[in-house]
């Protein structure tokens, strides 16, 4: 292995990254793989923007359009005629914000209890909580629909945000974070100073859980914003539809106006893209930290 001998002789430290020793040809292959993958990943987003600026006939022509057209305002107008789309976006936002705020509060509270207190039944209750992670939630859609019907919560956003107020995943994430990053002495000190238990949570724990809350908040927001099966069961009128449901309805009607539909897709996706651009580092780091521990 001459190349290795050369490194040894020159005294250079061999690169320590996985794959750092790839010979030039393999390195080229690696770059090529990354590039092709990235292009294929981004391409559908690109066409989403391109299609939003074209008429229906332009979208379905030969060859398909690959550059922006000038029909965006017409598509926008058509979309607004067919659906109260800003209302639908507002519904999505309302649902996502309420779910996120309540989830953050209740999951941090419970995560704190599991991380910092020793109380009777703690292990059993935490085990039960972890077990609920294994139940596939989509299997529950029929009883979920019936319960909401019985409660009279059909067409009410609370049918989705009330059950979503706390999640086992969120509590697990917060427990891991609080347990590993906040010293118990801090809680003890506050207790000796006469703080109430909830006061300790509010003034000591909450300010210190920022990074974990940001991750959980983003995940919850994105999941709620993108939710489909839940809203499909709950919402029955175009006034109460969330954005994904409105898109689905637009696609379902005969003679779909694909330009208007793409315009709606862009309006639904862009807020998430902006959010992601602002917070992607936080989200990705938080998610991988949580998943490798699990």
């Amino acid at each position, binding site marked *: *292995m001459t190349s*290795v001998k050369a490194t*040894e002789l020159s005294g250079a430290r061999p690169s*320590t*990254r*996985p*794959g*750092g*020793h*790839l*010979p030039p040809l393999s390195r080229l292959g*690696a770059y090529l*793989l*990354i590039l092709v*993958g990235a292009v*294929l*990943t981004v391409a*559908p*987003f690109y066409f989403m923007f391109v299609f939003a600026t074209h008429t229906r006939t332009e979208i*379905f022509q030969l060859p*398909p359009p690959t550059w922006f057209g000038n029909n965006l305002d017409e598509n926008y107008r058509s979309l607004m005629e067919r659906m109260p789309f800003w209302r639908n976006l507002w519904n999505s936002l309302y649902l996502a914000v309420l779910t996120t705020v309540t989830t953050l509060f*209740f999951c941090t*509270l*419970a995560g704190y*209890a*599991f991380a910092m*207190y020793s109380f009777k039944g*703690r292990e059993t*209750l935490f085990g039960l*909580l972890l077990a609920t992670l294994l*139940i596939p939630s989509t*299997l*529950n*859609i*029929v*009883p*979920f629909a*019936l319960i909401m019907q019985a409660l009279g919560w059909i067409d009410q956003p609370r049918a989705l945000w*009330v*059950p979503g107020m*706390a999640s086992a995943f969120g*509590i697990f994430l917060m427990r891991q974070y609080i347990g590993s990053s906040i010293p118990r002495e801090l809680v003890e000190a506050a207790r000796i100073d006469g703080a109430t*238990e*909830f006061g300790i949570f509010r003034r000591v724990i909450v300010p210190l859980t920022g990074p974990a809350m940001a991750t959980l908040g983003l995940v919850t927001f994105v999941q709620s914003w*993108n939710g*489909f*099966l839940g809203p499909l069961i709950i919402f029955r009128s175009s006034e109460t539809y969330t*954005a*994904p449901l409105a898109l*689905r309805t637009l*696609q379902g009607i005969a003679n779909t106006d694909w330009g208007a539909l*793409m315009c709606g897709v862009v309006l639904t*996706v862009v807020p998430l*893209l902006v959010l*992601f651009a602002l917070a992607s580092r936080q*989200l*990705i780091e938080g998610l991988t*930290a949580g*998943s*490798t521990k699990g």
Partner: protein
Amino acid sequence: MLASKPTPAARRGGWTDFQRRYAPYIFISPFFILFFVFGLFPILFNAYLSFQQWQPGSGLGEMKFVGLRNYTDNLTDPTFWQSLRNTAVLAVLSGLPQHLIAIPLAFAVAGVLRRMQHLVTAVYFLPYITSIVAISVIFFTLFSWQYGVINAALNALHGLPLIGGLFPADRINWLGQKEYVQPAVALVVIWRYTGWNMLLYLSGLQAIPRELYEAAAVDGATGGQQFRYITLPLLRPIMFVAVTLSLIGGLQLFEEPFILTNGTGGAGQAGLTTIMYMYRTYASYSDAGVAAAMSWLLFLVIGALTLVNNRLFGRSGLAGRDER
């Protein structure tokens, strides 16, 4: 500190004690209340429902106990079996390639990228954060038979010298022909989750001690050998997590096939998954009992396959061969 303690304790002793004692139970109670009301109760109700004949519109009084008939109805229904087959095929067709692409991709990203790593990871992660409905609508147009971008691209690739033969000469009727519905759905799922898996593997790769690669390099191991003898075996725990997640996700596929086939199941019902069929049984056929039984049957399948997966990839399994 000890001296100051009695004063406040003496003043508010009862309340302080009380709230200290019960605080953790109060703090965790919201989750458990929600779980009992919206998690456990529906499951039990679903079990009860699966033995009843009932149409949701007719009021609770109209329930009729039918024993195992909802189960036998499902098991003798060819469409149910087809939906199970579709689900299984889709889970494999969409699950396997995700990992076969994600692992080398993570290896490549970890190997050759330094400063760009965060940006590239973010790009690969984009599909995961985007609404499935939006994605499926976009792909619906991309898959168009005569005028779709995907067929146009395949056609252009077919015209290339040397590798052109790898690509089809004719336009593929992706969503209109039975044979292509499942590959089309699988492509969307692969596109959506490969980046997520890449991210998992990347975090797994970064946890591997660098000294191992150093030592291997000094011993003269090539990149391929390092991948084979260091990366793959040490990636096994994360591989298990990632495969389990895609398996459970794949068996519950709903949104992608639902939107791509416009809710119909597509040509020859090839895109009808079990969750879709369950939704249809409940929403269109108003047959809550049969739908409930169907969800329990699917639950059994998911449970069984998860067990098999645990046996194959879990603590035992592949380990023996790669350890020396």
